[in-house]
């Protein structure tokens, strides 16, 4: 066994020889001596007759293929001749079949529910984009749709996205607080602080104009004289307030004493413009 294996390994062909012998490019005459029998064997294989001798002897007439070959060719031709019709039938068969009976009810229910949900969502989004929803719902939809890059105004905003502040009611107790803040420096006419962005001060100015008075006269009934005269004092420096925008003590007739000590707490009214 070892001898045979050693003999085999000693006859190992190189890659070019093997390729040449197998592809037929290297014939028996051109092959190396030790490979000539193999090349000859492969040549004999290539020239093997298509049919064995007994079958050839049974062949009829001049046809070398024989009966079996003729029958095979006829069967192939028949298959190929029928092929187009076969394909057409298959196309027809593949047309989606639609049954005339209604589908199960639950399918319709699911579809109806889906359509209703979709319509509701579309309706809500439409209302939200028109700004017609209550502020919390508007805010919720705005936040949700902003995640998808859709911009919808938030609640309490007009179409341009700006807030529409109302300001304090000058006919009520807020008037006193606003007047204090105004004269404390935030909205003082003399200091040029009548900020057009301050709706509260603007309202105060408008109310005074409507009454045919200056702001000073308009506020005279709720403020002591000293407040309006010393308004540019220290109060300005404390005007950055944490203010609530109105005087909590207003309405009780108490006068704040902040202006008398110079520091006051006018800051408590400082942000009344936010209202």
């Amino acid at each position, binding site marked *: 066994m070892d001898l*045979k294996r050693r*003999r*085999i*390994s000693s*006859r*190992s*062909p190189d*890659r070019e020889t*093997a*390729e040449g*012998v*197998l*592809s*037929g490019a290297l014939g*028996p005459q051109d092959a190396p001596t*030790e*490979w*000539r*029998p*193999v*090349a*000859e*064997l*492969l040549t*004999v*294989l*290539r020239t*093997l*007759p*298509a*049919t*064995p*001798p*007994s*079958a*050839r*002897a*049974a062949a009829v007439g001049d046809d070398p*293929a024989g009966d*079996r*070959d003729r*029958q*095979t*060719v*006829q*069967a*192939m*031709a*028949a*298959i*190929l*001749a*029928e*092929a187009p019709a076969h*394909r057409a039938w298959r196309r027809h068969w593949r047309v989606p079949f639609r049954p005339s009976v209604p589908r199960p009810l639950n399918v319709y229910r699911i579809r109806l529910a889906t359509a209703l949900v979709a319509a509701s969502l579309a309706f809500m989004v439409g209302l939200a984009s028109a700004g017609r929803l209550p502020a919390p719902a508007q805010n919720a939809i705005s936040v949700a749709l902003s995640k998808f890059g859709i911009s919808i105004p938030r609640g309490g905003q007009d179409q341009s996205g700006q807030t529409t502040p109302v300001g304090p009611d000058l006919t009520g107790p807020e008037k006193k607080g606003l007047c204090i803040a105004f004269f404390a420096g935030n909205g003082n006419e003399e200091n040029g602080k009548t900020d057009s962005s301050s709706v509260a001060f603007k309202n105060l100015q408008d109310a005074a104009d409507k009454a045919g008075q200056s702001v000073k006269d308009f506020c005279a009934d709720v403020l002591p004289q000293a407040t309006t005269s010393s308004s540019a004092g220290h109060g300005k420096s404390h005007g950055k307030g944490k203010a609530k925008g109105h005087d909590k003590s207003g309405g009780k007739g108490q006068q704040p004493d902040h202006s008398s000590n110079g520091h006051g707490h006018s800051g408590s009214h400082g942000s009344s413009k936010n209202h």
Partner: protein
Amino acid sequence: MALGQNFARVLLAAKSGEEWAVAKLYQDLSGAVLNYLRLQDSGEGEDLASEAWIDVARALPRFEGAEDDFRRFVFAIAHRRLIDHRRKLRRRKTHPAPAELIEPHLPSGNVEDEALDGIARKEAIARIRGLPPDQAEVLLLRVFAGLSAVEVARLLGKRPVTVRVLQHRALTRLAADLAEFHVTPEQLRTM
């Protein structure tokens, strides 16, 4: 007998069911296909070849390509048919008698021609059948189908390196076999 430039015309006619065109395609490759199958299955090679050609006819309307592609296409179908046949044999557990056992008992034509043709053929067939099945498969696909190692690898689902190793071993084994029995090229030619 390659069809060459006529191949496209013959293929088109064959697809439409023209018998002459089908016969041309068949005659071009039937011998190689038959020998490829017969050398691997001595009992039912001819039946397998006929079934393979019927499969070729069924698949032919979908075929697009040149003559070399058609050759690969036909041998791929023949190879699959052979694999199916081997699976069936494993299930049936039967072994049909080889054609070599039956042929001597059949009425023959010219005895002298048969003898002259048959000896070299039988010698070559015996050597090939002495190879392990995977080596014989690679060798026969390279010889009869004219496929490259890469094409054989693709057809058999193996790596090209594996195919080269198998063909290398097959050639080495054939060389050793012929040397062992002292068969020379001249003997093979004159057998």
